[in-house]
Every structure is written in C-alpha cells, then in structure tokens.
C-alpha cells in the first residue's frame, strides 16, 4: 500500500517536472544535442582526457624518463617509437600522454580551487556588502594589477624545490580574481530578491542563505565558468612549462614538448617533437571552450538556440 502511494507521488513528481519547465540538466542536454559542434567537442574533449588518464597507467614513467642519447631525435616510426623521440631519447607519444594527463589534472585542480575561492569570497562580498565588500574588492583590484605570468615566473625562479601542489596554489593565487568578480555580480543580482528576505524572516542563518538558497540559483553559471576556467588554466600551465617555469623538471607537461618549438633549429628540423603536443593542446582547449559556450547558452535563456 505504502509502495503504491510512494510510486504515485513519484509519478506526480515526474509529471510535474516534465509538463512545465524542463530541469537544468535537460536544458543543457537539449542545447548540446542541438549544437553539433558542442556535441563533437564534448566527445573529443572526453576522448583526450580519458585517453591520457587511462593511457598513463600503462606507461612506466621511470622507463619513459630514462635518458637515452643514442636514440635522440629518432623519426616517427623508428625503433618502435610511434611519434619518434626527443632530444634525450624520450618516447614522444608516452611523454605526450603523461604530459597531457599532468596538464589536465593541473587544469582541473586549478579550476576547482579557483571556483571555490571565487564562490566563497565573491558571495561573502556581495551578500554582506558595505565595508566588507569594499575591502574585498580592493584586495581583488590589487591582485588584478599584478601581471600573473610574470609574478608566477618570478616567484618560481626564487623558490627552489617546489612541488606541483605548490605550483597549483601559486597559480590559483594569481588567477582567482575574475571568477570572484563574476560570482560577486551573480550573487548581487540575487541578494535583494524577495525569497532571500523571506528566508531571513524565516530565521535562516546567513551562511545557509548564501550556500543553500542563493548558490543553487546560479549553479548553471558556475558550471559554465568552470569549463571556461579549465580551458584557460590548462593554457596557463602550458605557457609556464613552455617558458620553462612550469612543472618541475622531472614532471612532463604538454608545454615541455611545445617548448622545443622555441628553438628555431629544433622547430624546423624536428617537427615531430612539438607538433603533436601543439595539436593536442589546441584541440583540447578549443573543444572545452565550445562545450562551455553551449553550457553558457543553456544557462542564459536569451542566448539559447534550442
């Protein structure tokens, strides 16, 4: 009997949801299905991410990073190296897979960190307003005028023996500002809605109002911003590695491979050293961006195409 009652309720629930306005997930799904490019991008991005993460389990990193100068700059296909070898005789394909995994993991952890800081600081700033807002926003302004790449390079070159975790924290410290500003503006648009006032008169605490009432209402924007931050953070990490200030020497990154293009001699003579990495990077960031754009359209009803 109770079972019947329950399934009836479930039914009602589902009916109610489908009849009127589709849920967020459904809108996102529809937007992506409608936009062929977004769908292709999603699959390509997922393929690259999964391939590099799963593939890296099958690669013996110690063996990969053994210097073998007799086999340096082998052409693709020679001696079992599908994409050839580099300066130190490292297998380019293996290096690329592990490097892509590292770059992606760096990007993901940076994006998570930046979004968390942005949501927390931005929401506090917008919700409390007044002097709190003023102080936080001046701190944001201060960080914004620091040229982020130069600052990271300077600190990294002073800091000996830093770990990838240190680097993530350092990079996050230099790039949390724009997300914070976005979150602040989103929270400001919600702060004075009547439902927030109603929660206040219902005796709900400030933190609960911020994270349980306001946050779900802008979750779509957060997902969207996450993907776009992810793409730009992968780019940032690659830039640093390319310049030689990124991940520590023994940790491969896509940027290390692209770095071979920095030397004109290498760039022209050994294109297999840097080209595959560059192509992987471009495809990955472009497809994440395309997918992110579709998410953004799903989040904003006026931009929707489906």
């Amino acid at each position, binding site marked *: 009997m109770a079972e019947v009652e329950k399934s009836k309720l479930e039914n009602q*629930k589902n009916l*109610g949801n489908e009849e*009127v306005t589709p849920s967020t997930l459904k809108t996102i799904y529809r937007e992506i299905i409608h936009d062929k490019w977004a769908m292709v991008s999603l699959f390509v991005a997922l393929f690259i991410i999964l391939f590099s993460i799963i593939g890296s389990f099958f690669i013996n990193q110690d063996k990969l990073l053994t210097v073998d100068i007799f086999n340096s700059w082998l052409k693709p296909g020679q001696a079992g190296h599908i994409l050839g070898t580099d300066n130190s005789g490292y297998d380019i394909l293996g290096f690329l897979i592990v490097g892509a995994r590292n770059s992606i993991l760096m990007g993901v952890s940076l994006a998570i960190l930046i979004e968390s800081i942005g949501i927390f600081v931005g929401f506090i700033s917008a919700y409390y307003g007044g002097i709190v807002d003023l102080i936080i926003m001046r701190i944001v302004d201060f960080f914004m005028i620091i040229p982020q790449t130069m600052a990271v390079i300077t600190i990294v070159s002073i800091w000996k023996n830093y770990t990838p975790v240190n680097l993530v924290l350092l990079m996050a410290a230099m790039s949390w500002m724009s997300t914070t500003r976005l979150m602040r503006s989103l929270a400001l648009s919600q702060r004075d809605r*009547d439902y927030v*006032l*109603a929660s206040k*008169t*219902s005796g*709900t605490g400030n933190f609960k109002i911020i994270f349980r009432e306001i946050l779900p*209402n802008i979750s779509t924007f957060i997902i969207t911003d996450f993907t776009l931050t992810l793409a730009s953070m992968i780019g940032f990490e690659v830039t640093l590695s390319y310049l030689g200030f990124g991940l520590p020497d023994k940790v491969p990154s896509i940027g290390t491979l692209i770095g071979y293009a920095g030397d004109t001699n290498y760039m022209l003579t050994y294109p297999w050293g840097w080209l595959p990495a560059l192509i992987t990077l471009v495809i990955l960031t472009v497809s994440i961006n395309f997918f992110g754009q579709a998410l953004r359209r799903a989040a904003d009803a006026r931009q929707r195409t489906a």
Partner: protein
Amino acid sequence: MSIIEVKNLKVWYPIRGGFFNTIKGYVKAVDDVNLSIEPGETYGLIGESGSGKSTIGKTIVGIERPTSGSIIYKGEDVTKGRNRKKLKYNRDVQMIFQDSLSSLNPRKRINDIIAEPIRNFEKLSKTEENHRVKELLDIVGMPKGSMYKYPFEFSGGQRQRIGIARAVSTHPKLIVADEPVSALDLSVQAQVLNYMQDIQKEFNISFLLISHDLGVVRHMCKNLSIMTRGRFVEVGTREDIYDRPQHIYTKRLLAAIPDINPRNRQEDTKERLRVEAEYENDEKAWYDKNHRVLDLKPVSGSNTHYAAVPESNSMVEQGGK
C-alpha cells in the same frame, strides 16, 4: 493590551554625493511614526507608492534597520538583533510578500519552502513536519500533491496562498502582509483575502495589511492609517476615516474611489474636481515649509481619530462632507 508597538520610528536613507562621497541629505522613507496593533485585529496601512508603507512593514519584521525609534514586542525592543534572537521573534512575526513568484525560491520544492520556518524554529521529526505541511496546504486550499512541485508550476493566486501557508507555518501572532493581493486579479484577490480571514479566525493572528487599495482595506480592517511622504496624515477607525475624513490628502484619496453607478457620474466628476481644486489651493496650509506632513492631533469629538491638521483651520470644524 497591544501585541506590538511602534514608537517614533524613523528610517532615513543617506544620500551620498560629491567628491568624498559624503552624506548630502536623507531620504526620509519613514519619519516619526507611531502605531500599535491589537491581538487578532487587522490593521490597515494605506498609502501611495513610495510613501514608506512597505518600509514600515520590513522594519517590523526585522529586515530593514531603523535610524531611530523602537518597536516593542513582549516588553523588549526588537529593533536590536539580539533581542529578536532571544525572543525567537520571527517565529511570532512573519511576512507575506507582494510578488509571490520572487518570494519563493525557484529551486526549492513547496515542501521545503513551507517547512523552512518550521525547521528553523521548531524541532519536529520528518513525519510530523510532513504532516504539518499537508495540514497547512489544506488550510489554504491546495492539494497535497503540490508539496512536491516547484513554485513556477502554480498560478499567482496559488503561489500567494503558498506564501500564506509559509507565513502561518509556525503559528505566528502577527503577520505583516505587504500588498498581498495587489498583483492578483479581482476574483483571486477575494479568494486570497478570505483565506487570510479564515486563518485569522482559526489562529487569532493579527495582520498588518499594507495596501494602496482602499476597497480591500475597508473590507478587512477596523483600524487604519493613511500615509504619505513617510508620515501618517490620518489615523482612526474605518468609520472615522471613510465617513469623516479630515485631511485634504485623505479626502482626495477617497474621492478617487470609482463608483459603479453610472447615474452619478457627472456629479462624481464635479465632486472630484472640487476636491482637487481645494487640494491645489490649500496644499501649503496642510504641509510645513519642507513639505513635511504636520503632527497628528486628536480630532474633536472622537478618541480614536487623529489627523495632521493645521493649527487654525476653519475647515476642520466643518468636518468631512
């Protein structure tokens, strides 16, 4: 013994400007207002847009901070957050909002919306809470199935009833209803107002009914105040104000009520024009130099009726009509 007393309430908003962003002046949204509400009564607060009536309501429930003055509830000044917390003030004083859609969180189910005050102020088990929510939905005439729906799935009248259910969920003593029906069409207005009256009878709740609709207030309230420019111009019982208006602003407001009988149309128009002309001629006498409404004075021959009349005015003796 009144349930809540508002004493000399002032809510001023600073106007900042200039190079150093200094305070150049104030918007006096509420300027020295006194008001008290009896248990179980509906008190009407009438005024045009921007007269400060909503600000009074929001100050009473504690979401707007007063510049000065006090609000006394159970002998404590509840303009201080500490006292509000101590008394669990918002369990006893709740609010119904004008815009029913924006006052319900679009991401929450009706169940969670109505249960929010219960979860904060009372410790009930899940089944008890569920039971209470169903009971409340029943009181406002909504089917039980609506518990699991979202706010956008309902019409304006239904949403406003959900708002009422949330407001009464902790059995409050006073509900501030900020234009609860002005966004609804006429038939739905009557329905929502009737639900409010039923609830009032059932739980002995006081209402502070904020409205610009003279008909609604006449239907609902025994005592009422007319407000303009942040001040009360006239306070009294329904009969005092509707039958014997003293202030020219009140007269002008009452003259604006349309009459459904078309036979009197020409006379009504004439009367309206006369009131309007009187208002324009005498306006200066009824307000002070800064266009501020004068202080309230008792009207002779009544102990409930107060009006902001000038010191010497022959018109006061003539009385209303």
